[in-house]
Structure formats: C-alpha cells, structure tokens
C-alpha cells in the first residue's frame, strides 16, 4: 500500500522526464551510431574535419577562460559581499541577483551596444584619441568571452557567498585564538573550506558556457561559431541531423564527464558534508 502510494506520487514527473527527455535524448545519441559507414563514422568525420575540431577547441577554450575569470572575479566579489555590513550586503546581493533574473538575450544585447561600431567603447576610445577608426570588436572571441563572464559572474558570486557564509564563524575565531592572523586564517582555514564550493561554481560556469547558444549567436555570429550555435546551424539550416546529433553527443559526453569528475572531487574535498 505504502509502496504503491509513493510510486503513484512520483510517477507523473518521472514519466514526463523519461518520455520527453530521456527517450528523445537517447534517440539523438543512438542515431549517431546508425551510419552505414561504421558505428563511429560520424565521430571520425567530426574529428577529421578541421572546422569542426576548431569549433570544439574554440568552445573549450572560451568555456575555460570564462570559468577562470569568473572564478577570480566571483570569489573576490563574494568575499566582499560576505564581509559587507548588512545594508551594503543586501544592495550587493540585489546587484548580483538582478542581472541573473534578466534574460540571456538582453544581457548579451547590452554588449552589442557597448562593443558595436557606434558603441560606447568605440566612442570613448575615439574621444580619447587612442584610435582614429572604430575597432570592430563584435564577432570576436573576446566579445563572446566578455559577455559570458558578464553572464556567469553573478551566478558564481551567489554560489560563493553561500559557501563563504556557510563557513562557521567559530572556525575563524578558533584559528585566530590559536595565533593565526587574517592572512594565515584565510590561507589555512577559509580557502581550503571554500575549495569544494569553487569547484561547484566552476562546474556550473563551465557547463553553462560550454553549452551556451544565445550569447555566441548574438556576439560571435558565423565567425566565432561555438558548439551550441554549430548544433543549431547543422540542425536548422543545413538539416544535417546526424551531424547535429553528433555535436549533441559530444556536448553531453563533455558536460557529463566534467560534472561527474568534478563533483566526485568536490565531494572528496568536502569535509563539511559530514559532522
């Protein structure tokens, strides 16, 4: 009876996920293995194509750089938020939450205004005399990275504020009472305890930027194609569904591998999970 009830309650959501997500995604992956030229033919083709390899490497590169920069910016900003007095802290949290609630399209669009030919940055540089001709900054890897950092830093800040505030004040005081100054306490107590949180934040940002679509579409265009925009182009422009599925499979493998490996590491490093 009990057993029946709990499954009945869980069934609608479970069935929905299985029917509309697990099966479609599995079928996407399976179609890549149906090539008459061999089971791995689409993957071999993917790897042999210089262009596709470039897209994959570029995507990895952008995602890694974005993650690294967001980690640094996010950690320092989170440190300030966590240590700020009450009122300032709420303002800072609002400043981080607001962009997060604003759509990706709008936030990427802001960088079109900033980086465009008539954009604020070009106007400023022309005004200072640093340049005489407007620079074309849109559709470059740099534009995509800046926008992605902008996109993901709030997420990193909020994740890390939670982590830093989760470190019991007692531990900081214990460290001080044992003679560790602020720098030593940071190095030997706070930072090691924040590492699992940094990993979690890093994974969020990496997978988010690795699989992003709207930002590279708006700011990268054809020139800076990433996995997401490439998948879309294959699927909806050239109607090469096997090719698109291959890209999808590669994306899944990379993100799942990163999530699994890193969360395993974070768990091992997380002494606060128990106790």
């Amino acid at each position, binding site marked *: 009876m*009990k*057993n029946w009830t709990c*499954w009945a*309650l*869980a069934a*609608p*959501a*479970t069935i*929905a*996920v*299985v029917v*509309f*997500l*697990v099966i*479609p*995604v599995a079928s*996407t992956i399976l179609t890549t293995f149906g090539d008459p030229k061999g089971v791995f033919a689409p993957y071999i083709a993917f790897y042999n194509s210089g262009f596709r390899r470039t897209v994959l490497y570029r995507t990895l590169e952008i995602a890694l750089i974005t993650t690294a920069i967001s980690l640094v*910016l996010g950690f320092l*900003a989170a440190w*300030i938020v966590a*240590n700020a007095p009450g009122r300032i802290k*709420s303002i*800072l949290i609002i*400043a*981080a*939450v*607001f*962009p997060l*609630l*604003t*759509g*990706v*399209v*709008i936030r990427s*669009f*802001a*960088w*079109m*205004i*900033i980086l465009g030919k*008539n*954009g*604020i940055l070009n106007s400023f540089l022309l005004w200072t005399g640093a340049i005489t001709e407007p620079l074309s900054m849109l559709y470059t890897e740099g534009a995509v990275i800046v926008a992605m950092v*902008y996109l993901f*830093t709030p997420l990193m800040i*909020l994740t890390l504020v939670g982590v830093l505030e989760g470190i019991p004040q007692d531990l900081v005081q214990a460290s001080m009472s044992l003679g560790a100054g602020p720098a030593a306490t940071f190095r030997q107590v706070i930072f090691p305890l924040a590492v699992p949180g940094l990993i979690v934040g890093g994974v969020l940002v990496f997978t988010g930027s690795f*699989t992003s*679509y*709207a930002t590279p*579409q*708006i700011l990268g265009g054809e020139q800076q194609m990433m996995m*997401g925009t490439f998948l*879309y182009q294959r*699927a*909806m422009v050239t109607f090469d569904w096997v090719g*698109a599925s291959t890209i*999808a499979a590669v994306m*899944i493998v990379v*993100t799942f591998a990163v*999530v699994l490996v890193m969360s395993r590491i974070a768990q091992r490093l997380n002494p606060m999970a128990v106790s």
Partner: protein
Amino acid sequence: MSGRIHPALVVFGAIVFIFLVAPLFIIVGASVSDTPYLAFPPRGLTLQWFWNIFAIEAFRSTAITSLQLAVLGTSLSLIIGIPAAYALNRYRVELPKWLSTVYVLPILVPEIVFGFSLMKSVSVGLGTPIFLSLLIGHALLVLPYSVRVVSASLASFDFSVEEAAISLGCPPLKTFFTVLLPNIRSGVIAAFILAFITSVNDVSISVFLTGPGISTLPIQILAYMQQFFDPTIASVSVLLMIVTVAVMGVVEATLGLTFLAK
C-alpha cells in the same frame, strides 16, 4: 564572516559590481536615443522606440505566447513536481536514490541538446502542434526548480505534524491542502517565481520548437536583432527589466531576496 577588507579589494569589488550593473543602465540609455541606430550615450531623447514595440505585431503576439507558456508550463511542472518532491521526502527509504537525479536531468542535459532532441522526437517525430511542443519543453525545463525548491522546504517539514492531523480525523488529501501546503507555501512561491523567470527567458529550447506563426519573445527579439540595429530592442529590454524589478519587489515582499540567493 567579519574581517576588515583591504582597500584595494574594495576598489576591485566596486569595479566588478559596476561591470555587473552598468551594461543594464547602458541599455536604458540606448532605449531613449533618437538616433536610428544603437548609440550610447543617447544623442537626443525620444520615447518613439517604445511606441515602435507596440506597432510591431510580432512583439505583442510573442509576448502573449511567452506569458502563456510560462504560466501553463510552470503550473504543470508544479502539479507533477510537488507530488514528486513530497514522495522524495516522505518516502526517503522506499524510493531509490537515483530518482532525485531523474528530476534534475532537464538542467543536467545541455538545454540546446534537449531542445534539439525534443524537436526531432516530439515535434517532428510525433507531429505535436507547435504550442504543445513548446509547453512540454518549458514544463520540463522548469521541473528541476519545482522539485528542488519544494523539496528544500519539505526537508525542514516535520511529517509527524501530518500524522497528527490524520490522527485527529483529517483525511489524507485534505491534510495535504490544509496542513502540508500552507507550511511549504514559501517554497512553492519561490519555485513558481524561479520557474516562471527561467521559462520567460528561455532561448535554447524554444529556438528549435517555434514555428510558423508561433514564437516566444526572446526568439522574436533575437530574430529582430539580427535584421535591425535600431533601439527598439533596447526599449523591449527596458520593459522586460521593469517586469523583472516588479518580480524582485514581489519576492522581496513575500520571501525576502536572500531566498533567491540560495
């Protein structure tokens, strides 16, 4: 945490936060520029781009579609998500551990892969109408928020209270509505808001599922942006940001903003 912060760090932090907020102000500035192209700072001031939004039918119809999808999709996700969250917490022992992972799959699987697969298997494979496909996509996309946020508030719920109600003669279903639901109300509200915002802002799934005549607002914005470079998009963005501010106001009034920080 309470330590003195190094002044250099304060300056650095200020720069980070300016970096976070300034672009949004720049959009506001660009939306009132009277130039026919995007410019900041605005040369002359005008509200014509705001009127332009209403003149373009596509913005109106896609905004309505987005709203319908968000309300229906979020409600659907809560209708199937709350029982699942309840089951996960109440029958922790009976249910297998992997089940909770199933409900986060929609955010674990790259959105763009999910959208593409849904298009291939459901829209094309089953021939589902466009709106229904979009609804399925959005409901599933926000399901993780419904399950996880409601779960979080159920985790601190003492289920013996529910047993007390039943022992006092309240039938189980009535107990759910009169005892359990009021106690997880803030979780349900938070889940609704998070899910709603996620649905309204979604691009990666919708981009595969929209079709002739039916599109969502972000997709329409994206399409418009690639053809025109006038400040209309800036004014649409400003309107959407005003909505976001209103949502934040509601959140602050009902739950406190720290709720979203979690």
